[in-house]
């Protein structure tokens, strides 16, 4: 089978970004992917603009204070109520951070930067209810996403969000807390089996004293630090946290661990060990230059092999963002997107645990799949939404009560199905339809299918689609056909 440049370019845009945007539709056929990649990389060169939700220092300061009070477990009515209010405000602001970043993924030309940041957001999974800490960590990730892995690892390890989440504030000479040291090795750098329990204990000693202050800055508390000699991964010395990170990066296993994880994320859930090893060698030699690794991936001929195209299940964020890039949508209440994230199993800033989102087949169960298939019709207003996302007491997103504005109460259906709602949103159809203005009607089906689906439909859908499609006008044909194609299992793949 011949794979056209268009399919290759779309493949690249889905993997290195969040899929083609509606404005790119007519630009693919002429370029080779190498050129597309060069353009993409150039668009991501500039440092990202800080997403500043808790935008004044006082806000951040009080949030920080709330955190410290909580850590001290101070009891007392006033403190408690104040903490509760701070926590609520912080959670509301994390929602804004979520939606603002989501908009960036949709609209930013720096597609590689945002996509790779989402990868690191899962790799360095962190829950922290402090908005100030969360936005700082996100900024560290987005700024270092394409730079040096060593610098990224150091920045994340010294961020208040991660230090708090992995309890390093409690890691003191007198009472070492191993949580941070263990996860740095198990999840961030080496993976299980490449270190011993002794290494964990010794690394924990080296990290003693790392903490943060009220202003959200990293502090090294010398009186909490264990200055004794440590033996770590075969080396001996009076190590501190920076030394541990340096020794971890010296391990070839670290380059392999990251290369394999990125291969699974960007190329195929089933890693090809030959390719992984090739990437790992070069990653290690480049002193962990992430951009070089990405270039190696996205300009390799194997990346464009048939078996790697349309072979990944989109994450819920990929799905939602990809949809919005192709069909620009304005939601009356943007928060409905939080409900989608929740019901589909991926809420930004709320990873399921420290290991991040497992991805792959794990995204799919009956209810998640059926909701995915219905999503386009829900957004287009042709179907009613009746899903109450599960409560999460750490999260208390309070989404249902806040959705009133955007969800017009649907009529209580006569057949006793209970209350369901219409998602109130407007799709910018004219801008989409304009892309097909020169396509003759008989070719529309093929042209739209090729633009929307990376996985080949096993059977021609013509006959099936014909039954469900609105043939009345050209516009209705384009719209109903596109929504139907986006309601297929194939659209879940990229």
């Amino acid at each position, binding site marked *: 089978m011949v794979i056209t440049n268009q399919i290759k370019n779309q493949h690249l845009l889905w993997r290195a970004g969040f899929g083609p945007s509606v404005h790119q539709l007519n630009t693919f056929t002429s370029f080779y992917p190498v050129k597309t990649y060069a353009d993409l990389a150039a668009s991501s060169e500039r440092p990202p603009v800080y997403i500043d939700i808790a935008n004044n220092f006082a806000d951040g300061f009080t949030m920080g204070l709330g955190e410290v009070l909580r850590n001290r477990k101070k009891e007392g009515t006033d403190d*408690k109520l104040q903490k509760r209010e701070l926590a609520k405000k912080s959670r509301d602001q994390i929602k804004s951070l979520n939606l603002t970043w989501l908009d960036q993924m949709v609209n930013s030309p720096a597609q590689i930067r945002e996509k790779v940041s989402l990868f690191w957001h899962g790799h360095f999974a962190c829950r922290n209810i402090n908005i100030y800490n969360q936005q700082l960590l996100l900024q560290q990730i987005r700024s270092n996403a394409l730079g040096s892995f060593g610098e990224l690892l150091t920045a994340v390890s010294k961020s208040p969000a991660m230090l708090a989440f992995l309890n390093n504030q409690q890691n003191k000479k007198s009472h070492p807390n191993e949580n941070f040291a263990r996860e740095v090795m198990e999840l961030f750098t080496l993976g299980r089996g490449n270190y011993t329990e002794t290494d964990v204990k010794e690394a924990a000693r080296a990290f003693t004293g790392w903490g943060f202050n009220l202003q959200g800055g990293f502090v090294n508390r010398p009186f909490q630090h264990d200055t004794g000699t440590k033996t770590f991964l075969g080396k001996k010395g009076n190590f501190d946290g920076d030394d541990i990170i340096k020794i971890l990066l010296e391990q070839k296993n670290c380059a392999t661990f990251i290369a394999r994880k990125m291969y699974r994320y960007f190329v195929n859930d089933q890693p090809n060990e030959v390719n992984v090893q090739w990437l790992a060698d070069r990653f290690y030699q480049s002193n962990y230059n992430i951009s070089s690794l990405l270039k190696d991936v996205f300009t390799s001929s194997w990346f464009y092999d048939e078996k790697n195209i349309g072979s990944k299940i989109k994450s819920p964020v990929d799905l939602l963002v990809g949809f919005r890039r192709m069909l620009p949508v304005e939601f009356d209440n943007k928060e409905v997107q939080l409900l989608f994230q929740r019901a589909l199993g991926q809420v930004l800033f709320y990873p*399921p645990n420290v290991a991040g989102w497992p991805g792959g*087949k794990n995204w799919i169960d009956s209810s998640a799949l059926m909701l995915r298939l219905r999503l386009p019709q829900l957004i287009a207003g042709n179907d009613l939404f009746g899903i109450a996302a*599960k409560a999460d007491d750490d999260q208390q997103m309070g989404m249902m009560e806040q959705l009133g504005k955007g969800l017009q109460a649907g009529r209580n259906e006569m*057949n006793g199905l209970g209350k369901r709602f219409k998602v109130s949103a407007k799709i910018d159809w004219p801008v989409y339809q304009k892309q097909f203005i020169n396509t003759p009607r008989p070719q529309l089906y093929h042209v739209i299918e090729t633009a929307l689906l990376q996985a080949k439909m096993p059977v021609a859908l013509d006959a099936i689609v014909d039954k*469900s499609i609105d043939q009345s006008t050209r516009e209705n044909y384009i719209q*109903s056909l596109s929504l139907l194609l986006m309601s297929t*299992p194939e659209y879940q793949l990229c």
Partner: protein
Amino acid sequence: MLIRRRQFLQVGSLATASVMMPKFLKAFEQPNAVPAGNKVVVVLQLSGGNDGLNTVIPYRNDVYYRERPGLGIDKAKALRLTDEAGLHPALTGFKNLFDDGSLGILNSVGYPNPDRSHFRSMDIWQSGSKSNQYFDTGWVGRYLDAQCHCCDKPTQALELDDVLSLALKGNNNKGLAFKDPRRLFGTSNAQFYKDISKNYSDHHHDEQPADYLYKTMAETLSSADYIYKQSRLHPTNSAYPKSELGNSLQTIASLIFSEINTKVYYLSLGSFDTHVNQGNQQQRLFTEMNEAVSAFVNDLKKSNRFEDVLLFSFSEFGRRVAQNASGGTDHGTANNMFLVSGGLKQQGLLNAMPDLTTLTEGDLNYEVDFKQVYATILNKWLGVDDKAILGETYRHLSFI
């Protein structure tokens, strides 16, 4: 507007399309009816961290009243079970169950190195992991993996909810979540899905993501059909309270009477996260639980199925022994579990009440690992190899 709804949601029978169906679908066409006497588990998750000490009340314990001057439940109001334990006043139905030998209470259930974060502790309970392990699968999901190797029983574990919990996710098999069989049927019954589903043929290896998606879709459509039909086979005519839990247990009862192949039902009630004004919130939730579970038990008794059904409750953690300053309690550790069945081998208080004098940082110490309860149920009730599912041998308990 675009797609005529009636066309999109046309009713049709999946069975008529069976000739064209790929082989992995065929199996669903003859759902294995389960013989009466089939054991069923109903898991009731109390989300948010239920306060166990105000559930099973140590009404003779001075420490309890000293630590909870405003929140402790009055000795006179507690429903007395033994000369040291009483139930929350809203749990009258559970008191009746206790009296007729269908309630077991297991105290001090938890796990080593407890985590006080809701999401992490729930993760631990649902996955059946230790506190330093991270699993992508749940204990019921792994039961499915072990049970249905080449799964002809996609409805073996059902959750009465819109979103599937981690507990029901296995590596290769996942339970199915729905709130109402009719709505599940409605949303899965679109002609479009049926058409694309039946036209798919699995010429690829099953590992391909596309095959997995189609397999899940086919299972969903087929199961939706099956569940809906079963739910209408012997719909219960007993009265249930008009609460969400009442509706869910009514659905479960109808499915049990239909002899559907479901072995595990999963449902949750919440939120029990009572940092503030605990009294009212717990009262309201317990009233809902009490009415719904009582109706469910009476219904099962009427149909002689109570011996085959085991309902148990759990929460991700209990709460601090001492009340806080806002009329509530903060996150704690060990907690009690209710075991409800007509087939209990051991009833009443199954072990000692928690020791309120020996605390760790103000929290109760655990005596029973919750994975022992899972192991017992998997092995003795569901008749499977618990070690294969939990990854370790846990000492079995003797309540069943």
